[in-house]
């Protein structure tokens, strides 16, 4: 399998990359870790005339704290996320999620920016970003702008990105100290996309759920933020009946496709099971 011919560009700054992508328009594609795009190119499902490799832009890598936020450069790999002591302490759900993405070789190259910007509903990080209320920093022809992850996803492979845009960083508000978290993913085998997966971040106060946020992966054309399900849980212990009600609310917003991973109804139900498991684990981990 050999991809179609293309011209290769390796800019050394974001400005140069944005200029190139703006000039190339539909003929240009940004290349991050390449582990979604290159397989598509080998199948000739993607045939960009130009690839703009972001791998040479030092500014796009790294993880740093900025006040109450953590900023992660778009070209930071999943391997980097797993190895980061700062994330391990402040936002450990990113490590837990990264460890469930693909396999070690893919994680050495696969990037956070590529994972969230591609718009593939099978990618794991978008739902986690909805759960964490992340913001994407984007540089385009008109300069820099920020878009909330919760506003970013429009359909399968359709996002708020426009031609010439480069997603440069992800900004995540640090969850409260002592929060509980979990990313539960059902997959058939290593390297598979989720049949269904759920991300949960919550805080416990006085034995009850104080705050709660839930994201769901691969059970609709976009990642889902299960706002209603989370609302049901806040203020509860939660007891079995409340969990059941929240699971039903989460299942109600899913619209998965029937595919090799199972019929649509099965995938909806598995989203519910993943949510119940993630809730139990997040609760057990929370301090407060």
């Amino acid at each position, binding site marked *: *399998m050999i991809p179609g011919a*293309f*011209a290769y560009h390796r800019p050394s700054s974001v400005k140069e990359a944005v200029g190139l992508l703006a000039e190339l328009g539909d003929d240009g594609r940004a290349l991050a870790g*390449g582990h979604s795009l290159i*397989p598509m190119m080998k199948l000739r499902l993607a045939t960009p005339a130009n*690839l703009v490799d972001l791998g040479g832009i030092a500014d796009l890598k790294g993880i740093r704290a900025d006040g109450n936020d953590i900023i992660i450069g778009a070209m930071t790999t999943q391997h980097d996320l797993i190895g980061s002591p700062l994330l391990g302490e402040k936002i450990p759900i990113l490590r837990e999620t990264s460890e469930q993405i693909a396999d*070690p*070789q893919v994680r050495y190259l696969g990037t956070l920016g590529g994972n969230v910007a591609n718009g593939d509903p099978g990618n794991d990080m978008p739902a986690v970003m909805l759960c964490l209320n992340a913001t994407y920093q984007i540089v385009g022809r008109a300069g820099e702008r920020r878009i909330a992850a919760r506003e970013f996803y429009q359909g399968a492979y359709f996002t708020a990105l426009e031609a010439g845009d480069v997603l440069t960083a992800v900004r995540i508000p640090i969850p409260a100290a002592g929060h509980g978290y979990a990313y539960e993913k059902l997959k058939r085998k290593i390297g598979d996309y989720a049949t269904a997966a759920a991300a949960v971040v919550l805080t416990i106060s006085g034995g009850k759920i104080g705050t709660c946020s839930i994201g769901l992966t691969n059970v609709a054309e976009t990642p889902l933020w299960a706002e209603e399900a989370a609302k049901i849980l806040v203020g509860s212990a939660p007891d079995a009946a409340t969990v059941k009600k929240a699971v039903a609310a989460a299942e109600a917003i899913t619209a998965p496709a029937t595919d090799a991973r199972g019929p649509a109804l099965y995938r909806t139900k598995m989203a519910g099971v993943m949510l119940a498991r993630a809730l139990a684990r997040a609760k057990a981990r929370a301090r407060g």
Partner: protein
Amino acid sequence: MAKSHVSMKVNGKTIEALVEPRTLLIHFLRDEQNITGPHIGCETSHCGACTVDLDGKSVKSCTVFAIQANGSDIRTIEGMANADGTLHALQEGFREMHGLQCGFCTPGMIVRAYRLLQENNNPTEEEIRYGISGNLCRCTGYQNIVKAIQFAAAKLNGVAFQEAAE
């Protein structure tokens, strides 16, 4: 499409070549440099037979363009043996523990295990299994591959290899 100049170090030797941008690293190594240790298994980023060590990372060379590897330092199975020609501890482990049958996955397995042991010199069985989860073997059932890596870890750490009771 015009070719571009690339320069990279492969197994300690500098290679200069002209490549088409669309040339995958695995095809460059095998077809243009006659470095045929890395194998083409699935060509879909799943099987890991094409694994090479690139700047301290295990990568599937079927999913990297040769031009992206410009300036990099690569190691393949051809570069694993010690300078005096004796086998690397991993190679010895795979031989002693019967870590291979047909051998097709072995170059990728060993190169991956090399990086795993660089990052964690005394992995548990679970860590080994997780660490090689991007490499498929259709012969062994992995049991002896895990033992081979444990053998190598023990040897590199200068301790006697103790096979776990089954």
